[in-house]
């Protein structure tokens, strides 16, 4: 895939693989290319988990890039994905973020669609065009696939099958989903960050013990683990579970307890290209659905889940831990949220950002990293560069 001539010469991509040009974080023309080549290109994008849509008629709306998507569980129990636009004049069909419906009606001209997306009726169709056929005007479907209940969509027919696409990061995903993906929704935390989407997702293993004071104050040491990347830009972290000791620093140490079963031990992060992060830390199961709101903002929906087999005590524990540890107000993540805006402003300065921690080579990409390396992000940047067709400068 190549960038149009007007883009490529204007982005000077450095020769060293650990340098990224700052201009890609704020240029409107680059953002438009990202929408076409990445968000609407041959990539899979998580849009929902089946645990969010347990009942027939349950639906959810979300964006892929700037395209509105409707995810709905039909009256036959199957989950389908559509562009959230009336098949007639393109009016946004469903405005609610979630709910339960028996049908979807566009208020503009009262075209009515069933839960399988088929057009049930359109007023005045006796006077429609000669070639009009009702069966041709169902909701515009978008290609979808599922892994452990996580529903992906892609705008491209060229995207590889999901199993092949995910590759090794399936291992980390399986850990985050307690091994089987039988999850139930506990709720959301939603936030709009003033940051380009790439800087939002460029968080790394290097910063964690440095930015987040809670780890030091709680004497919370990370367990042994590994980080790996795939050629198509996914990143996986897998590590043994380490629970902070009760140092007396917090008055209520129960918040930091691990109550999971043996099968749910371990911490994992699965970051799928381009923008989704899925984590399992202690007893928190978290999917961060995200999409850009233009070149300078990123909206993130932190979805939290329990497992279908949890007893009431475990559910309550997950609710307490999830509500207080992660997200834009979380004990060990608020600082991430606060750093995003600073990154975005700072990236408007000239030059390149540089990765150093864990960089073994400057002239080629590799795929296995230590847990606290920031170099694990470099294969994703290489996939990004290739997706947009930017040429690397000669060394």
């Amino acid at each position: 895939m190549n960038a149009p001539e007007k883009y490529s010469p204007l982005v000077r991509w450095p020769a060293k693989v650990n340098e990224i040009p700052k201009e890609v974080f704020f240029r409107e023309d680059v953002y438009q290319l990202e929408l076409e080549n990445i968000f609407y290109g041959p990539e899979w994008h998580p849009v929902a988990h089946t645990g969010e849509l347990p009942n027939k008629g349950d639906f959810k709306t979300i964006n892929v890039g700037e395209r509105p998507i409707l995810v709905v569980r039909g009256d036959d129990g199957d989950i389908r994905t559509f562009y959230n636009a009336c098949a007639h004049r393109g009016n946004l069909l469903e405005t609610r973020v979630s709910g339960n419906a028996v049908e979807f009606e566009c208020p503009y001209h009262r075209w009515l669609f069933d839960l399988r997306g088929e057009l049930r009726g359109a007023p005045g169709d006796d006077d429609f065009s000669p070639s009009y056929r009702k069966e041709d005007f169902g909701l515009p479907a978008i290609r979808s696939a599922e892994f452990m209940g996580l529903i992906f969509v892609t705008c491209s027919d060229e995207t590889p099958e999901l199993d092949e696409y995910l590759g090794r990061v399936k291992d980390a995903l399986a850990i985050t989903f307690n091994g089987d993906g039988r999850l139930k929704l506990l709720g959301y935390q939603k936030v709009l960050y003033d940051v380009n989407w790439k800087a939002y997702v460029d968080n790394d293993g290097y910063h964690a013990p440095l930015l987040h004071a809670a780890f030091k104050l709680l004497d919370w040491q990370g367990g042994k683990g590994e980080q790996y990347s795939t050629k198509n830009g996914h990143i996986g972290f897998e590590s043994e579970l380490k629970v902070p000791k009760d140092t007396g620093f917090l008055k209520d140490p129960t918040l930091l307890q691990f109550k999971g079963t043996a099968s749910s031990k371990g911490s994992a992060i699965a970051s799928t290209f381009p923008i989704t992060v899925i984590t399992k830390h202690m007893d928190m199961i978290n999917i961060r659905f995200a999409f850009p709101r233009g070149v300078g903002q990123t909206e993130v929906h932190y979805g939290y889940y329990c497992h279908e087999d949890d007893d009431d005590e475990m559910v309550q524990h997950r609710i307490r831990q999830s509500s207080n540890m992660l997200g834009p107000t979380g004990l060990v993540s608020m600082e991430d949220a606060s750093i995003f805006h600073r990154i975005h402003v700072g990236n408007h300065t000239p030059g390149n950002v540089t990765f150093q921690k864990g960089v073994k080579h400057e002239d080629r990409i590799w795929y296995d990293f230590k847990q606290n390396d920031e170099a694990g992000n470099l294969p994703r940047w290489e996939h990004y560069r290739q997706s947009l067709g930017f040429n690397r400068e000669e060394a």
Partner: protein
Amino acid sequence: MSNLSIEILSALDNAQNGYINSLDTKNMDGWLANYTTDGSYICIAAENEANNLPIALMLDDCYARLQDRVTYVTKVWAGTFEDYQTRHFTQRIGAEAVGNDTYKVITNYHILFTPEQGQTNVLVTGHYQDEIVLGDTALFKSKKAVMDTNVSPRYIVYPV
């Protein structure tokens, strides 16, 4: 229209004013002092509240958690975030006695924030569902801040 006396309504309003003043002056110990020793604080998005989804943005369901909220802001996060000034604007819209000098109070709130660069914007709007005990000092037995702002415009450091 409340049938409570002017004196009681005034005491309830004073409690609310004391609460928002402690936040607007970034006085976290003062914020804690607004609560009874069995007090609780929950900040939750209206979307979750409406759909019976329990995940909150802040869930301090016991006094120890309230104390830890103070520790978060004053010790854990100190020096790591770009600070901002809040201004809370509130309007009581309902109050009723529930016995034992305790009152359930509903109050709309609107919170503006001004980061260090100086541009002011809306942080969140919503309503409080409070239980206030009027004793020698008016204290919150529980406070739930339900946020209409389901998508908050930034990270939130201080309680709402």
